[in-house]
């Protein structure tokens, strides 16, 4: 009689024989003691094996790690796409409203009238003043709406569930800031095709914005003045600042704050300026009865200074004539500098002119300090940075600060000890995330800065961006150091890892020609690692929060 095979016995013990075979095997077993014994062995063996394999001895996970939700990358991508959409919309609107309407309006104006810069500027200012506020409100409203939708999406994606209340709260704040009436503005607008006059007897207790062909300020303004037109005459007094852009600007009264302006001719006649005077134009003059208490900055063709200047004088004029006292230093870039008889420079005079004979100093002119002739600064210095001691000192300082910051970073976020750039697709993903973050953060900051409530967020975003850029190389330094020291006895030393990694990175980014590219790649990868770590951290915190 043929005995059962081992395979038949094993499969029978497992209750896995095909039906037609079972019959035969059962029949055989009834009459064969040898096979019965073998089957008993096989069954017993099966029991022990099952018991062993089912036993928990192999299960030794120290703790159940939090579940990492798989969609964080797609959420991140979604938020980025939404940001892109907002920027695109903003650009589109900007082009449509300001590009098409305003610029076409200006072009239309200039084609009808004799093209005159100041006329067009005046006309543009009129358009702005009449339509601009409403346009800007609409534009701002759209941006605020997009940003608040984006913020809501972001908060929903990141915090989900209960914390979504936070995003709703933020939405309400942003929404209210849009619909709430703007605070009563202390601005008075005056516009006229021909002339805007503030009469001698008149006092304006607001900021005055005036646009017209001719602007005559005879009265007093307690506030700032913004004036643009063909001719601006200020005979009265302005307690605040003055901004004046016109073909000719003449200031005869007193100004409490600073004066900023531009014009073909810009004259101060018997005027006193409490702050700085910053002007640009063809012909600039400060007569002997005038006085500037702060700094005087002039740029243009001809400048004649006959009134005293309280502090420094900076001149970027082609020809500058000084016949008065300058409280501190004088610095002049230009073609010719003349110090006339009554000139008195209390500090030094630094002259950046082509040759000394272009400097005229009258017999009576006094300079208490020294007169220096400086060459026009060279645009590029041909100094090899690698041969200077300062270069290496700087690199040493960078290394030490990177070490300290790196150690602090590891102490705060121990997970960076294991952050690594993966090969293949993982590495590309890190680079992609890094690139998106490096590019999108400043854009996001710029976009949200448009909204009043967004300014702190914008600031925080910018700070985060700068911090990311700095930390990026340190995180990469950790990765490089760890890789290099993986098989040495220093592999557990944070200091050694950081030191080696940062030295390698500092050398790499200072390589001639390719250093810049290396630095960029390292930054992108490092920012990618940081963002991935942040996303993972958020996901972990979420899981913990929802599990507890």
């Amino acid at each position, binding site marked *: 009689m043929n005995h059962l095979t081992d395979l038949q016995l094993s499969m029978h013990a497992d209750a896995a024989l095909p039906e037609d075979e079972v019959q035969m095997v059962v029949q055989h077993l009834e009459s064969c003691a040898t096979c019965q014994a073998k089957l008993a062995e096989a069954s017993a063996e099966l029991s022990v094996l099952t018991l062993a394999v089912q036993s928990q001895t192999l*299960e030794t*996970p120290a703790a159940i790690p939090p579940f990492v939700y*798989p969609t964080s990358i797609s959420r991140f991508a979604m938020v980025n796409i939404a940001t892109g959409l907002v920027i695109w919309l903003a650009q589109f609107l900007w082009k449509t409203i300001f590009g098409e309407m305003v610029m076409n309006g200006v072009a239309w104006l200039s084609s009808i009238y004799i093209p005159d810069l100041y006329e067009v500027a005046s006309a543009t200012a009129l358009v702005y003043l009449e339509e601009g506020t409403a346009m800007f409100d609409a534009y701002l409203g759209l941006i605020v709406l997009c940003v608040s939708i984006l913020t809501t999406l972001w908060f929903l994606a990141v915090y989900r569930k209960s914390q979504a209340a936070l995003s709703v709260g933020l939405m309400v704040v942003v929404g209210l800031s849009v619909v709430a009436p703007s605070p009563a503005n202390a601005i008075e607008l005056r516009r006229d095709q021909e002339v805007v006059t503030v009469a001698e007897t008149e006092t304006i207790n607001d900021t005055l914005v005036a646009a017209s062909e001719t602007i005559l300020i005879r009265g007093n303004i307690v506030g700032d003045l913004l004036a643009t037109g063909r001719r601006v005459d200020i005979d009265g007094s302005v307690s605040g600042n003055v901004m004046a852009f016109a073909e000719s600007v003449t200031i005869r009264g007193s100004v409490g704050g600073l004066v900023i302006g531009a014009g073909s001719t810009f004259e101060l006649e018997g005027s006193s300026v409490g702050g700085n005077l910053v002007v640009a134009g063809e012909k600039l003059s400060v007569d002997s009865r005038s006085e500037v208490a702060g700094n005087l900055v002039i740029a243009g063709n001809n400048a004649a200074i006959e009134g005293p200047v309280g502090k420094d004088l900076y001149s970027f004029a082609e020809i500058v004539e000084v016949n008065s006292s300058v409280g501190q230093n004088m610095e002049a870039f230009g073609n010719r500098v003349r110090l006339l008889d009554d000139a008195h420079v209390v500090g030094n005079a630094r002259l950046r002119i082509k040759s000394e004979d272009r400097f005229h100093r009258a017999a009576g002119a006094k300079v208490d300090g020294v007169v220096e002739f400086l060459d026009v600064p060279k645009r590029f210095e041909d100094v090899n940075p690698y041969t200077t001691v300062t270069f290496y000192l700087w690199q040493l300082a960078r290394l030490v600060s990177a070490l300290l910051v790196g150690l602090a970073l590891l102490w705060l976020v121990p997970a960076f000890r294991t952050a690594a750039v993966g090969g293949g697709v993982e590495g590309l993903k890190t680079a992609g995330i890094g690139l998106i973050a490096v590019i999108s953060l400043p854009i996001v900051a710029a976009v949200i800065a448009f909204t009043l409530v967004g300014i702190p967020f914008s600031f925080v975003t910018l700070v985060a961006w700068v911090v990311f850029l700095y930390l990026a190389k340190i995180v990469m330094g950790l990765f490089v150091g760890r890789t290099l020291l993986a098989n040495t006895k220093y592999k557990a030393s944070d200091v050694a890892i950081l030191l080696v990694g940062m030295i390698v990175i500092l050398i790499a980014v200072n390589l001639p020609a390719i250093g810049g590219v290396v630095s960029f790649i390292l930054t992108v990868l490092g920012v990618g690692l940081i963002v991935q770590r942040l996303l993972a951290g958020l996901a972990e915190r979420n899981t913990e929060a929802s599990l507890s």
Partner: protein
Amino acid sequence: MARNKAFEVLYREYYVRVFGLCRRLLISQELAEDATQETFMRAYKSFGKFDAEQPFWQWIAAIANNHCIDKLRAKNRSDQLFGDEAGELENLASADVPVVQRLIAREDTDALNLAMATLPDKYRVPLVLAYFNQLSYDDIAVQLDISRNHVGVLLLRAKKMVRGVLVETHPPTDPDQDQTSRKGGSV
């Protein structure tokens, strides 16, 4: 979201078992941890398709099996991880490992698990699927893309190899001691 809440409850409840399955299939602790995360990740993504009438364990174990077997195939760079049946039968005929039933019965589960861990992938995987996962021969055949009979051959060979390893690592001493610690359990 209710869906996430439900999934996290299941995650906590089944993590250890799924980890145990992956650990037995892949041996390495690190690989098993990764595979467990990946298994739950895949389960989370297709959680919408999960039929609540079905036992969750069956569903998640199938995902874990698929993932681990894919990993092993990738490691061995071959779809033919489980060999072909004819060659296996030849092997079987020539392999003459003595049956040390008493030794098996006396061994503690740790030694058995260690012995199983030394088996090549192609024998260990069916063993785990059959006795840990409690899958039928038919299910294993589908899972490994081999014939039903081939499953029987692999399992028999696996058992013989476990015995072989035990004989090597624990040579029989005094056969009378066996009686005291005989272990058993129902399948």
